[in-house]
């Protein structure tokens, strides 16, 4: 309990909280890294996932490569890119995108591919173009799954973004690595608690968005028939 109290006191101390290297600013930085990595992963993963899900081509490639990407140890990737690219944000960002990509890709792909075959067939038979089938039928029906993918990607990156500090970038990891070196365990625990708090808050935010999405794209899945 002493550590928890010490961690709380550390957080409550305005000296630690404010300023450009206070935990307030580091939290914003941490969220910014997370958002940036997730958005980049979406920009790559959603079009790719949609293309594969709609065309049913390269399915095996996607499934096996996302599986392999999931198995990558992020610390190793950060180190590798750090050695290649040097100190800064590029290396960890690349690693985070790599971390977020499989979930986003799988969500986009599974959502589109999982759209009811009858509905897709009917859409084509009615004279929708392939783009219209994708954006008016498959994408809306796959929205909950895509959102689930983005959600888990975001949470993974949020939890892992502490590693950015390992190669000299910012984020809440700064306190973890600093605390480790200076044996300031209260500081380490405090920054961990902030990460945990952020994760819970972000997950809750996604839960709300998820409900809104399910309301605007009702698919009847799980509804009483």
């Amino acid at each position: 309990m002493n550590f928890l109290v010490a961690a709380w006191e550390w957080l409550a101390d305005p000296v630690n909280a404010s300023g450009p290297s206070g935990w307030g600013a580091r939290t914003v930085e941490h969220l910014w890294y997370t958002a940036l990595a997730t958005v980049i992963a979406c920009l790559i993963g959603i079009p790719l996932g949609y293309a594969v899900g709609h065309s049913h081509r390269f399915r095996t490639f996607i499934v096996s490569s996302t599986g392999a990407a999931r198995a990558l140890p992020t610390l190793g990737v950060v180190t590798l890119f750090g050695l290649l690219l040097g100190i800064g944000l590029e290396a960890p960002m690349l690693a985070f995108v790599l971390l977020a990509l499989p979930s986003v890709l799988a969500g986009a792909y599974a959502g589109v591919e999982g759209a009811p075959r009858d509905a897709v067939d009917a859409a084509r038979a009615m004279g929708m173009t392939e783009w219209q089938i994708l954006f008016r039928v498959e994408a809306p029906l796959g929205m909950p799954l895509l959102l689930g993918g983005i959600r888990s990607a975001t949470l993974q990156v949020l939890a892992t973004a502490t590693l950015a500090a390992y190669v000299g970038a910012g984020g809440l990891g700064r306190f973890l690595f600093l605390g480790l070196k200076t044996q300031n365990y209260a500081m380490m625990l405090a920054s961990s608690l902030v990460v945990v708090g952020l994760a819970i808050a972000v997950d809750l935010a996604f839960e709300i968005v998820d409900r809104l999405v399910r309301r605007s794209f009702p698919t009847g899945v799980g509804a009483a028939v």
Partner: protein
Amino acid sequence: MIEFRNVSKSYDDGTLAVSDLSLIAASHEITVLVGSSGCGKTTLLRMVNRLVTPTSGQVLIDDVDVADRNPVELRRSIGYVMQNSGLLPHRTTVDNIATVPVLQGTPAREARQRAVDLMETVGLDPSMARRYPWQLSGGQQQRVGVARGLAADPNILLMDEPFGAVDPIVRADLQRELLRIQGELGKTILFVTHDIAEAITLGDKIVIVATGGRIAQQGTPEEIMADPADDFVTSFLGLDEARALHVSGRLVVDPTGRPVGRLA
């Protein structure tokens, strides 16, 4: 008029779904393709709107080869009603019905208004307009499917076992409704079913398709019932010896004495 001219369809694995079939479906009539599962009747139907491309031969609508037409425009000009309705689960009844008119550029308000009118045509209460497909019964979903097929006022309606998944009472009801609608609208309908009773009820002309996409016999229901071309047709119609019926009092019974009907 829809004409199939020597069409064949074979798949890469060597399966022959349709072999050298020629057929004319006259305008403003219901032509029923009937046959057992896997005989190629659905393949034939899907050739008309280019969902399936024949390996050889042509499909013509009013003497124009469909292969020369843009598939998207062609499909928008032909109504399509399928089994299990194929409604878009994320759209309400009106929006499902209005799909094709909206694709064709009709303003949404106008298309929705027409969709509500069509709901009445197919016997659906307008109060269901804002419901989603899963909130409707199977029979209601099929009615929405029919309304959607009619929404762009196509000359041709393709119906692929549209009443196959509903119970017999609802099916009879839907069949009556279809005949009433056809009496008013006079569309050229190509209708696929595996149910010979349905074919006889609906068809101005019946085409019995045997396995491998070969026509076993075609004609009006009367012609086929009176003079089945071969044993296959006879057994498909249920007219073989095991079903030789006779009258016992007011009942019609089969050779084992089981009642199969009653004289009016």
